């Protein structure tokens, strides 16, 4: 969040805004927002409706929308790297090289956003319609059904129908296994609210050579 805040602060007078959407429940998102105190809109999406609309599967993902409301960069990983997979899982420490890689990826992504804000369609990072369309990832029937199960599960959870909710979360995750949003929202959290226990790492390890954060097509990344 500090990254988005400095990006917003740098460009808010240049016709730019960050709209942050928490794929989360309000109680869990609140402390983060209260500490970071962002001045851009910070919205809470309990039902992951934005993930459904934009076919997003993880956080952070972002899409660039121009002044006319047109998508000029389809939803994609917003500057995160897979360096975390090499961390020491007990101490949660990363080697200096991994930290450096993580920071470089983030910086490159943020610099690209700045370039677009300043240059508009002339930015090499903003796509023309045909290229943007070609880079879209589109949902299939199983994904659409997964979102319906997720919606039902969140509703049942609101009524404290935990067992039934768990069934529909499970169904959602089985239908849409690439969605970390669905899986982690439903998973057991540790004391700090993270779904980063042995089950998480087992699921990450099961990816093998496949990425957790899908690398994006951006010079420097």
């Amino acid at each position, binding site marked *: 969040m500090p990254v988005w805040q400095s990006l917003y602060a740098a460009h808010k007078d240049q016709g730019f805004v960050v709209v942050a959407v928490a794929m989360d429940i309000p109680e869990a998102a609140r402390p*983060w927002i209260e500490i970071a105190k962002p001045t851009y809109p910070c919205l809470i999406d309990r039902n992951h409706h934005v993930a459904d609309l934009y076919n997003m599967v993880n956080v952070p993902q972002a899409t660039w*929308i121009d002044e006319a*409301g047109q998508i000029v960069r389809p939803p994609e990983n917003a500057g995160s790297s897979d360096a975390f997979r090499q961390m020491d899982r007990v101490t949660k420490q990363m080697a200096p090289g991994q930290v450096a890689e993580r920071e470089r990826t983030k910086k490159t992504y943020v610099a690209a956003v700045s370039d677009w804000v300043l240059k508009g369609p002339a930015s090499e990072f903003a796509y023309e319609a045909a290229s943007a369309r070609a880079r879209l990832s589109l*949902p299939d029937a199983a994904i*659409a059904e997964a979102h319906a199960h997720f919606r*039902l599960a969140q*509703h049942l959870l609101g009524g404290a129908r935990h067992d*039934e909710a768990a069934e*529909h979360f499970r169904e959602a995750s089985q239908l849409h296994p690439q969605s970390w949003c669905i899986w982690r929202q439903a998973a057991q959290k540790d004391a700090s609210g993270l779904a980063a226990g042995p089950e998480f790492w087992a699921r990450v390890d099961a990816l093998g050579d496949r990425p957790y954060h899908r690398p994006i097509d951006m010079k420097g990344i």
Partner: protein
Amino acid sequence: MVVVLYEQSQTNCATTRAAGEDLWIGTRELESATGWSMKPEGLCRGDICVPVPVSQAAEYVAGDAVNAARFWRRMGSPVVHDGAREVWVLGTSANHRGATLQSLEAPDFALPDLGGVTHKLSEHRGKKVLLATWASW
């Protein structure tokens, strides 16, 4: 009574009958819950109409009620419900989601901030928007 979840809305419907995989809803309630309404052409929303299949009309329409679940499945849209058939999600098809994305017009939504104030994405027309997701988990 049945709770109908459609896109971002949640509506309590009284004129319903749920049996098996069928969900009958009074046409007026269906319209207020989903925006889909019965017209001579079929079940319609905006420019889109789903005709009633002539040979199976009785499975789709009965007097002032329509079988929403049948219509939804006919559109390729997911329908899921709880065990007691008291909560039904009338989902949106992958084709519809995909076509919307391919138009490149950013799908609009309305979501609350922590203070409960609703914001729409489209309020920011005229600005460049970085729509970014995050989570605590």
